[in-house]
């Protein structure tokens, strides 16, 4: 009895050939090819991979926090306070005996939540306002841009403080406050791109085909603006993380005993001279993640921005 031999084309060879094929037979394949070529350009840049690696590490840390944390991040142990980094406590313990490494690991969830929610609120809102204002012009443009001006005229942290003061402290309000300060620059950016694109012949062509303004904005103008928005919001991530850390530092973001990195940094201040690791560890975590997003944003700009050569 012989087993029936199955001859499949090796999956890798088939996929790669499909991605590099000269003759394209579907829109899906065309898009996949474009993504693949973009990925190849992206991955040829070592800094890009470092940035991406850091961001991926953040996500992994957040997702698998329960598995990689060595202790319960909320478990206090007053006889194990202020211990320096050791084999038992990799990053030491804080003033209530909680393991700092575990708090950083769980704190990654909060950082990731802040980053994702702010991006998901600010980017689409800014994109929508910017493209509508830029394309429709007239009083719509004036009204929307004055709204943007109002938000832009406040420094980010001050505006966030004002919102938190009005809405009350807590992580959700902090995220909302930060998102409200993050969307106006995106709107300005989207509007500027829309103003350039609006005069293009391909927009005139689709108007001639009978497209409505809404269709033009969503299907034709937004796709042109999206790469710039992605780049801008990625580069803004560092600032967003720092603003959140600042709010946490001031006690206005996540409330204790939440392991938010900014709050950890704030309480660690008091112990800086004697037990430097309370402040340094969350500080380094903030630094690394901000750096990661900056590198990623720069690399995305090189890949997505057709003007950069």
């Amino acid at each position, binding site marked *: 009895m012989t087993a029936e031999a199955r001859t499949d084309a090796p999956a890798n060879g088939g996929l790669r050939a499909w991605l590099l094929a000269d003759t394209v037979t579907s829109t899906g394949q065309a898009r996949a090819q474009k993504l693949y070529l973009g990925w190849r350009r992206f991955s040829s840049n070592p800094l890009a991979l470092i940035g991406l690696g850091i961001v991926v590490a953040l996500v992994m840390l957040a997702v698998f926090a329960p598995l990689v944390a060595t202790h319960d991040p909320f478990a206090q142990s007053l006889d194990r306070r202020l211990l320096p980094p050791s084999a038992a406590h990799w990053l030491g313990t804080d003033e209530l005996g909680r393991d700092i490494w575990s708090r950083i690991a769980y704190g990654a969830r909060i950082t990731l939540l802040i980053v994702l929610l702010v991006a998901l609120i600010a980017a689409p809102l800014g994109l929508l306002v910017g493209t509508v204002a830029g394309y429709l012009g007239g009083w719509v443009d004036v009204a929307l841009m004055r709204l943007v001006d109002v938000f832009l005229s406040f420094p980010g942290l001050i505006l966030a403080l004002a919102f938190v003061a009005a809405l009350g402290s807590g992580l959700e309000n902090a995220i909302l406050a930060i998102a409200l300060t993050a969307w106006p620059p995106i709107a300005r950016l989207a509007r500027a791109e829309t103003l350039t694109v609006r005069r293009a012949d391909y927009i005139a062509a689709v108007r001639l085909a*009978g497209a409505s303004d809404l269709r033009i904005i969503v299907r034709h103008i937004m796709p042109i603006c999206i790469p710039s928005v992605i780049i801008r919001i990625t580069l803004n991530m560092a600032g967003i993380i720092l603003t959140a850390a600042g709010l946490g530092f001031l006690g206005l973001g996540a409330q204790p005993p939440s392991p938010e990195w900014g709050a950890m940094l704030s309480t660690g201040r008091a112990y800086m001279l004697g037990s430097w690791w309370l402040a340094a560890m969350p500080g380094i975590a903030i630094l690394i993640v901000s750096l990661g997003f900056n590198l990623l944003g720069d690399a995305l700009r090189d890949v997505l921005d057709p003007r950069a050569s």
Partner: protein
Amino acid sequence: MSLPFISVRGLRVRFGRGANLIHAVDGVSFDVAEGEVFGLVGESGCGKSTILRAISALHTEWTGSVAIGGRPVARRRDPAMARIVQMVFQDPYGSLHPKHTVETALMEPIRIHGLDDGARRIDRVLTEVGLSPAFRYRYPHQLSGGQRQRVAIARALILAPRLLLLDEPTSALDVSVQAEILNLLSDIRRMENLTYILVSHDFGVIAHMCDRVAVMNHGVILEELTVEDLMQGRMRHDYTRELYEASAGYSRRLRARAEDADIAA
């Protein structure tokens, strides 16, 4: 005597306000018969492209009257017009959406009008413009200038319009590609019995494609003449003669005349 297919009366287009007011088109009237190729020739800023944009309602702030096939052109968005008049633009590198494949670009008009024979129409127009099916899923940056212009023509044909407005369709193309596209436009016009209004600054292109031509300067039509008259040098206006002779290339005999045309500092 049949009614003209296209009738333009007293068309006026103004840009700007007050001190910056420009009369881009200043009272233009002409007729085009069905199946005719009508040329608009002039130098930059004479208003010829602006006329196309007004006729197609891309630009809606004009006065006067324009009628196509007896139907007046509205000064607002009118999707029904898309199935009557379409346009081919000058710059092949700017007339296709950079992020849409050829397929998507051709499907867009079909989707907008909710037609259900999209695949058949796309096959037909791609064959008409001489592009093989291999081009369907390509992005514009993967196509040459001539190929892009073919896609632009295909897109203009997909809703089966009756009038095509051609805004310097070959000015941005290489000489050898220009010949192919001009031949293609001639073939398509015969096959689909279309009417063309062709804008160009190139007298050679005008002479090759058009039946009649209007010469424009500073927003007005100086004269209308048949192409036969043009080629025989039977023009009435000095400006027309100047353009005609200039298109023959540089000539030392034109020195004296060019002195008069010097731009005042």
